[in-house]
């Protein structure tokens, strides 16, 4: 007989869907089927069952091959590497639970590390903008129940947050949105006619990298002032139309993604986006929300927020917390040779950092904690596979709207595998011995 586990949380993206059903074998050791998840979420659950999964730590040999080592040896190597380094970089933290993030932060304090999470290549610039001018936001529940004007700017949830639109933003029927998608006006701003744009009432095919101008043009249009004939490749009539559409709603929500955070202008684009939201509140209720990528990148910002006062790029090397994006951020540190060891957990900079940063990781003492074999494990000296959080171990995660949700364990990890938190706790104890703290 099989068992069906209901209300399972999906540990893939920041939408953190909480309605999955997972079928497991009677002894709870095998995961057989996944229902309600998107293609990516389902794949994540099923991949934990891969026959070729790596279940023991490995160390890179001189000739480039791997040698299996024990968890004890991996703890010893990691603790020594961190304790010996003058300024280690501890990066990642977004695909793990808050409990592990808290232990990691304690290690960072003990060894004087720079702690950085994946926001650094994702919504880091949004966090800078929020510190500049604040953010009028809301929860996804409010979006579902109230929003009748939905603007997606530089994001493509059809591909990156596949169930976002059906659960919260376009299709669901909520308390004040009983007509579902027919009661909502959807606007997409993107340089490509994306699959999300195909669902929109209005698509503005903006000239890539000109987001700041278009945000400003919207602010002008709200006030009914004069615009040039074309702004960022969009005719002024279209801009006035979008401005009127937004103003005429009862509740407008702006979702934004990498199109704005990674294009030139960076945090200033988000400043402008938030200013649009603020201006819109003169006419109706409006809120704005970043489309956070990893399922718990928001959580790592929360945990470090409580502990250090900063959500990413926290430099603890001087014995107190410093934060200066551009200086204490991973890619800047790596490019400038300002760190002497790299520890990665719950992220894949080998695949997602520009190559010159990856090369620096290859040249340094480095450890990666990750259930998968990745380009990061390819360039690191030690690879420690661990249990999948949200599949083989529970723990707290924060949804993109800063709502904490407890993830669930649905199946046992392969025999003898450690979790992130167990491994980090062991490293912390050993680091304290080595440092005499």
């Amino acid at each position, binding site marked *: 007989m099989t068992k069906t586990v209901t209300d399972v949380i999906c540990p893939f993206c920041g939408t953190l869907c909480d309605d999955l059903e997972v079928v497991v074998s009677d002894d709870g050791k095998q995961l057989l089927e996944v229902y309600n998840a998107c293609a990516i979420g389902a794949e994540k659950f099923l991949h934990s069952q891969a026959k070729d999964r790596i279940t023991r730590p490995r160390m890179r040999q001189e000739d480039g091959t791997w040698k299996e080592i024990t968890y004890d040896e991996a703890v010893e190597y990691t603790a020594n590497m961190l304790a010996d380094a003058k300024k280690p970089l501890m990066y990642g933290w977004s695909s793990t639970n808050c409990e592990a993030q808290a232990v990691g932060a304690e290690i960072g304090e003990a060894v004087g590390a720079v702690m950085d999470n994946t926001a650094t290549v994702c919504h880091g610039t949004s966090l800078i903008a929020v510190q500049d001018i604040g953010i009028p936001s809301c929860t996804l529940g409010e979006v579902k129940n109230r929003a009748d004007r939905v603007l997606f700017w530089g994001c493509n949830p059809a591909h*990156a947050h596949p169930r976002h639109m059906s659960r919260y933003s376009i299709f669901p029927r909520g308390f004040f949105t009983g007509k579902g998608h027919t009661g909502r006006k959807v606007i997409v701003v993107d*340089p490509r*006619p994306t699959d999300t744009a195909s669902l929109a009432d209005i698509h503005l095919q903006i000239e890539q*990298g000109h987001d700041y101008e278009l945000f400003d043009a919207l602010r002008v249009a709200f006030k009914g002032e004069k615009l040039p004939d074309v702004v960022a490749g969009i005719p002024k009539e279209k801009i006035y139309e979008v401005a009127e559409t937004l103003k005429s709603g009862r509740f407008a929500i702006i979702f934004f993604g990498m199109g704005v955070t*990674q294009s030139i202008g960076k945090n200033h684009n988000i400043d402008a986006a938030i200013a649009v939201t603020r201006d819109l509140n003169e006419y109706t209720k409006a809120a704005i929300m970043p489309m956070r990528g990893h399922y718990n990148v928001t959580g790592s910002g929360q945990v470090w927020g409580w502990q250090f006062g900063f959500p990413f790029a926290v430099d603890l090397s001087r014995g107190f917390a410093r934060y200066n994006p551009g200086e204490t951020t991973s*890619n800047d540190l790596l490019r400038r040779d300002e760190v002497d060891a790299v520890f990665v957990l719950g992220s894949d900079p080998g695949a997602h950092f520009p190559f010159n940063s990856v090369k620096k990781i290859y040249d340094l003492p480095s450890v990666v904690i990750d259930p998968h074999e990745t*380009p990061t494990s390819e360039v690191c000296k030690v690879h420690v596979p661990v249990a999948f959080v949200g599949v083989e171990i529970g723990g707290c995660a924060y949804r993109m709207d800063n709502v904490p949700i407890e993830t669930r364990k649905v199946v046992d990890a392969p025999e003898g595998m450690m979790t992130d938190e167990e491994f980090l706790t062991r490293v912390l104890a050993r680091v304290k011995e080595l440092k005499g703290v």
Partner: protein
Amino acid sequence: MAIRVNLITGRTIQQGVAMEAGKEKPAYATACGIIELDPTDFKKLGAFRNTNVRVTSEHGSVVVKAVEATQGPHPGVAYIPMGPWANMVVNPNTYSTGMPTFKGTPVEVEVAKDEPVYSSLELVRKACRGELA
């Protein structure tokens, strides 16, 4: 004949699924070792669909397979899904924000029929060891 286009990167659902299924698998290279080009840019390039091309920016160079834009038209704009292939050529400068400029890198695309598209692990390994052409 080489063409100049504006390169952007980002997620695709195929990239997400292949990534979760294992980045060491061939499906990941199929999903991300590509460049999506507009039909008008294909015409300018003078290449058939599914031809290997070399993409070069002032920051690096990589061989990927050219495919027709799945979410187009977007003439003058090219798309490589996020991953090690895109990251060989994107602009790493953060302009003091911590964020590399993943979107909006001017690149040159030229036909490279006989050059292989490497798997993700191979690409990163060869590039780190300086073994790439």
